């Protein structure tokens, strides 16, 4: 074929790199503006003030700097991160494996689906005191709290992701003589990965809820302790600094996960 394509899309693609870079720069500016606007509104609301217990943005930043300087923030994070990271790794590994197995085999689906659907519907905050009752107030109880919140959403998303893989791609793999293993590794997992990663993102934010709930409900340690302590002594700026830091930390963890997905698993998403 000497089909030299004179497709308008071809010209458009050729012109794209510069165009893309410009729109990316614009996006960054608008996002920064969004954050700045939020901080400004916080500052104004604190100065009005809407409530005596509501500090200004600048006071919160100052309190944050102070807590970094005296090491209390770092100490709190070390305590909080241990059960959180263990819980999230366990939830991610077990959750994705179980979810994928449920998507691949009907028998596993029938066993697993009811358990995780009920777990996801359960108000886990009500279960956490019971976890304490059984496992005490140590690391185990906190890891279990994280898993209780993170696991169901990861399992159910992975399961749905695999169950909804494009059947045409599976037929394609079969017609080009792919084995079942190749089909799973080269087609099903990559095709399911956006939804699996969406589940992981929800799971991570649920895990953060789990660890903070555990630290507030089981024993005050780590960030939960910082929040409780500064509230008790009416250091509201410090309390807000602790809360804001965990929110920022959680958001950063989610961005990191998205970066991993785009970098290693679905490179085409960067170009859309």
């Amino acid at each position: 074929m000497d089909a030299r394509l004179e497709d308008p899309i071809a010209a458009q693609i050729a012109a794209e790199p510069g165009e893309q870079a410009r729109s990316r720069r614009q996006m960054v500016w608008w996002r920064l503006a969004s954050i700045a606007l939020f901080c400004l509104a916080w500052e104004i609301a604190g100065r009005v003030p809407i409530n005596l217990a509501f500090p200004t943005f600048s006071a919160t930043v100052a309190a944050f700097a102070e807590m970094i300087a005296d090491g209390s923030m770092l100490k709190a994070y070390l305590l909080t991160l241990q059960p959180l990271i263990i819980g999230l790794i366990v939830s991610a590994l077990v959750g994705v494996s179980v979810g994928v197995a449920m998507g691949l085999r009907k028998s596993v689906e029938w066993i697993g689906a009811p358990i995780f659907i009920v777990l996801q519907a359960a108000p886990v905050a009500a279960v956490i005191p019971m976890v304490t009752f059984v496992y005490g107030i140590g690391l185990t109880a906190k890891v279990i709290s994280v898993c209780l919140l993170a696991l169901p959403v990861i399992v159910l998303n992975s399961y749905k992701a695999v169950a909804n893989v494009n059947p045409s791609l599976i037929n394609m793999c079969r017609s080009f003589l792919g084995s079942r293993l190749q089909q799973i590794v080269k087609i099903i997992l990559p095709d399911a990965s956006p939804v699996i990663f969406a589940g992981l993102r929800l799971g991570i934010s649920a895990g953060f809820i789990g660890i903070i709930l555990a630290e507030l409900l089981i024993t005050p340690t780590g960030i939960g302790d910082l929040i409780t302590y500064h509230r008790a002594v009416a250091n509201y700026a410090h309390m807000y600094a602790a809360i804001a830091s965990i929110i920022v930390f959680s958001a950063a963890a989610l961005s990191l996960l998205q970066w991993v997905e785009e970098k290693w698993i679905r490179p085409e998403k960067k170009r859309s």
Partner: protein
Amino acid sequence: MVAVTRKFPRPADPHGADMTSLESIISVRGISKVYSGQVHALQDVDLDFPAGALTTLLGPSGCGKTTLLKIIAGLMAPNTGDVLVKGRKVTGPGPERAFVFQDFALMPWATVVRNVAFGLELRGMAEAKRHEIARRYIEQVGLAGFEEKYPHELSGGMRQRVGLARALAVDADVLLLDEPFSAVDEQTRRKFQEDLLRLREIERKTFIFVTHSIEEAVYLSDRIVLLSRRPGRVSQIIAPQIDRSGSPDEIRRDRAYLDTVEEIWQSLRQFVD
């Protein structure tokens, strides 16, 4: 209904031989297919596909033509009957058949070159070698320069060229095309048809082509199998004798071309409400 092979006067036969005397590379024998015990898609289909010919399965929508193609591809099992490839019974996909999908079936996470090389990747060929082969076919279907693009960066017509290059890259004897041009616009479709005719001169392969377009079937085919409405049976086999040495416009104005289109329409209109 009886299968009839029509003979037309042949001014110039580009393949130099009577199609009926050619050895058949694929045969189907007594194929019937019933979906979920109710929908009778195909009934007692017997067909031979001559090697080197382009045979089109044509019929009203829902006549089971895609079902028949998927059974030939080994992607679907018939309820009764056998598919023979080079005289041997097959029950699944095989290296001698390659499929081009209606919805392209490209991996959105893979570049054009990886998509085209995918059949070879599944066979365990080393990356350098399979990419070299893939690049050759990408060039042949007119996509040189797009090797590192992702499918969403291509137009529909270009995506189907990727699907075609992937099927060519595994060097199968038979290409099975399931309404390959139905998801692209009419201009792209015509260009694609012209390119396919030219491709046939380079690649000596057998094509089995499913379409619902009478014009497309007549324009491209050596043999056209008309299927009746559900349950699909072979209603007629037509071998249009069209001189394809001229330009696309000349072919589309050719007397034999227009007569064959009209004749097929007269046969098929009985199936249309």
